[in-house]
């Protein structure tokens, strides 16, 4: 048995340092850094921003921080006072309120000079960024990535490619200088490198026992979201990968002994991560993979390292949330096989309709194709008012019986 200290992932500390530095730089007055700030959606193309030395800020990442710090509910209530329905995505509600009152763990995000919205994750971000654009009165760029229900069509490719060009022109106009294509090549190479490393990190849990759980992945995800395209991200994931391999050699895992291997679908329940981890852990069940964190390396097959800008259209359009639910189901089926999972837990997330609607069909497909037991839990990733602990607890206990 590993000691609690051995169980801890050492790289955590480094990640915290990097993220702190990142937020400190972002919150430093712009006159000192000389850098512009862009708010961007989590599925948005960040690489051109790094190429232009713009600091990308992710309200969704901040939403997760607020959620984990249990500060989201209050912000959501504030948004509701402003007239926003309590049924809207809690990231959006939290961020809109936080912009108005400088709320959350770091006292609000630095004001944006521009907004970049890519609707490859949902239509919510389009509405949310319109609200922000009206509030901050700064330029908004919308990258419209048509849903690939059954495939990636030729006209979609033409449309999105065209918009990549428009994006570059937008950045040139806002930054007041021409786009640095050489720098873009470097950033693109680094982005692909980081994504490959992230995939390798996620693959380490194929090992039995898994050296980490998806709750760790949710945490280590921060870097691939915000800093992909930088050397920092590459270095960090090399470090993390090394540590994971070391844990495998030493047989260290989070859940000991690991009796059940599970897969998580949808966003985490940020304010209950510990609770879920303990609850399942008590039954010797560990989450070895999830559909969420793998979203940031899932389109590697469409990326061309040697022509990053040219392959961005396809890779940003074909992310799993922007595909049909049968495709999403196949993704889980493959995961069950790859990670040799014993069950799948679906978080039916009241905030995220595109991720949650269709889960019943997905559950049916996964059940039919793999025979794996599935559990559906209703919650919300940030709004604690929408979580019923006793109800979820009973369902988890019943599910474990089935395994």
């Amino acid at each position, binding site marked *: 048995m590993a000691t609690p200290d051995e169980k801890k992932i050492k790289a955590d500390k480094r990640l915290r340092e990097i993220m702190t530095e990142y937020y400190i730089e972002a919150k430093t007055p712009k006159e000192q850094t000389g850098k512009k700030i862009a708010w961007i959606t989590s599925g948005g193309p960040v690489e051109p921003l790094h190429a232009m030395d713009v600091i990308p800020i992710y309200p969704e990442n901040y939403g997760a921080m607020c959620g984990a710090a249990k500060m989201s509910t209050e912000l959501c209530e504030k948004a509701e006072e402003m007239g926003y*329905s309590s*049924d809207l995505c809690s990231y959006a509600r939290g961020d809109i309120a936080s912009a108005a009152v400088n709320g959350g763990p770091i006292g609000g995000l630095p004001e944006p000079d521009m907004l970049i919205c890519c609707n490859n994750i949902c239509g*919510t971000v389009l509405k949310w960024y319109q609200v922000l654009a009206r509030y901050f009165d700064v330029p908004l760029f919308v990258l*419209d990535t048509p849903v690939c229900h*059954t495939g990636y069509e030729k006209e979609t490719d*033409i449309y999105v490619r065209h918009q990549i060009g428009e994006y570059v022109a937008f950045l040139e106009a806002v930054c007041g200088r021409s786009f640095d294509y050489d720098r873009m090549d470097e950033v693109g190479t680094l982005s692909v490198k980081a994504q490959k490393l992230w995939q390798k990190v996620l693959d380490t849990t194929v090992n039995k026992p898994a050296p980490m759980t998806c709750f760790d992945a949710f945490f280590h995800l921060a870097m691939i979201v915000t800093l992909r395209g930088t050397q920092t991200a590459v270095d960090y994931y090399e470090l993390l990968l090394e540590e994971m391999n070391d844990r495998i050699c030493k047989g260290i895992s989070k859940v000991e002994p690991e009796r059940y291997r599970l897969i998580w679908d949808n966003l985490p329940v940020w304010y209950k991560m510990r609770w879920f981890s303990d609850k399942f852990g008590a039954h010797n069940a560990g989450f070895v993979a999830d559909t969420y964190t793998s979203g940031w390396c899932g389109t590697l097959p469409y990326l061309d390292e040697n022509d990053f800008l040219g392959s961005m259209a396809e890779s940003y359009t074909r992310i799993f949330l922007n595909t049909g639910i049968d495709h999403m189901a196949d993704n889980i089926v493959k995961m069950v096989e790859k990670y040799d999972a014993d069950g799948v837990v679906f978080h039916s997330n009241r905030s995220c309709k595109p991720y949650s*609607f269709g889960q*019943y069909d997905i559950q049916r497909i996964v059940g039919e194709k793999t025979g794996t037991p599935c559990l559906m839990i209703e919650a919300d990733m940030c709004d604690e008012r929408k979580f019923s602990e006793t109800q979820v607890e009973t369902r988890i206990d019943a599910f474990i019986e089935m395994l």
Partner: protein
Amino acid sequence: MKDVLDRFEEVAENPQTCAFEWKKETGRPVVGTFCSYAPEEIIYAAGALPYRMLGTGGAKGYSDAYLQSYCCSVVKNTLDDLLSGELDFLDGAVFPHTCDSVQRLSDIFRLNMKNSFHLDAVLPAKLDTPSAAHYMKSVLERLAGDLEERLDTRVTKQDLTDAVLVFNRIRNGLRTLADAGMDNRINITAGELHTISRGVTAMDPAEAADLLDRLCTFIQPKAEPGSGPSKRIGLTGSVCGVPSVYETIEQAGGRVVLDDFCTTERYTDFAVDESADPLPAIAARYLKKADCPCKHSSLYSRGERIVEKAEKRGVKGVIFLLLKFCDPHAFDYPYIRDMLELKGIKSMVFELDDEQSVHAQFRTRCEAFMEML
């Protein structure tokens, strides 16, 4: 006039039966659609009846095993109709891209429809750039081709032009009647207008156009003085179907003079250019017509349009009807409310659980609002 209204009522009350009867009589296919961006002209040009799936309601419960409770009633009711077998008469369905909920409804339909085809028309979310305009046209071209294949037919330019003429007549007729109703130039209640809008969604377009033309002949050049309720009300908000709220508003003393729903002004706004190449002209209309909040044209376009119309029509108060769990409209409400307030136009917001069964509470809220105006 009565026989025309009766016919609309007959279809509005039994849209599925009427569409099915049309199919039996004509031997032609029926294709289900959704939303005010549904390319009805193209479906009609392909020889089929475009049938707008609005959900007949009644909380049948079939959809509970397919969709969570936090989904809007338009989507749930429509899925209920499919799962209960009521939509078995459809030969196919075409889903234009709108909101996140419909995006997934489309997938669920595709996986659960029996013996009928399913097509997505993934329209752009952006409407304000040349590349989006070009893409819009390409999507419609693809759809026309897909329909030709599925329905084993040819869609000629002439077919499209003919369809454009019919739908222009329908939209124009609906608009003219609504305007006349608002100005008291025709003896039609808001409730009757509602029935007409519903009837149009499930009727042979040529018949609908003729009936509307006939109704328009009853319009008087001048307003009847002093009749009817006087508080001039604007309606906006979600509701992708046809909510039964008009009579309640009228009974509370309100007169609806601005109606911005998906089946009313957002549907009837703007005609397709009849002199242009039909397919690009249909695409062009979608870029210009009153936009839906699922689309992105400009940051203030919807608010500006509503304020402008409200001022022009002397609206005293605006009622925002928000369908529960409808995200796109819920995001737009605060800013449009604030824009109206700046112009001194009062508003109230009411959340509907199900647009097919409007709450008694709405009556009370309406009465209180009218009193405040």
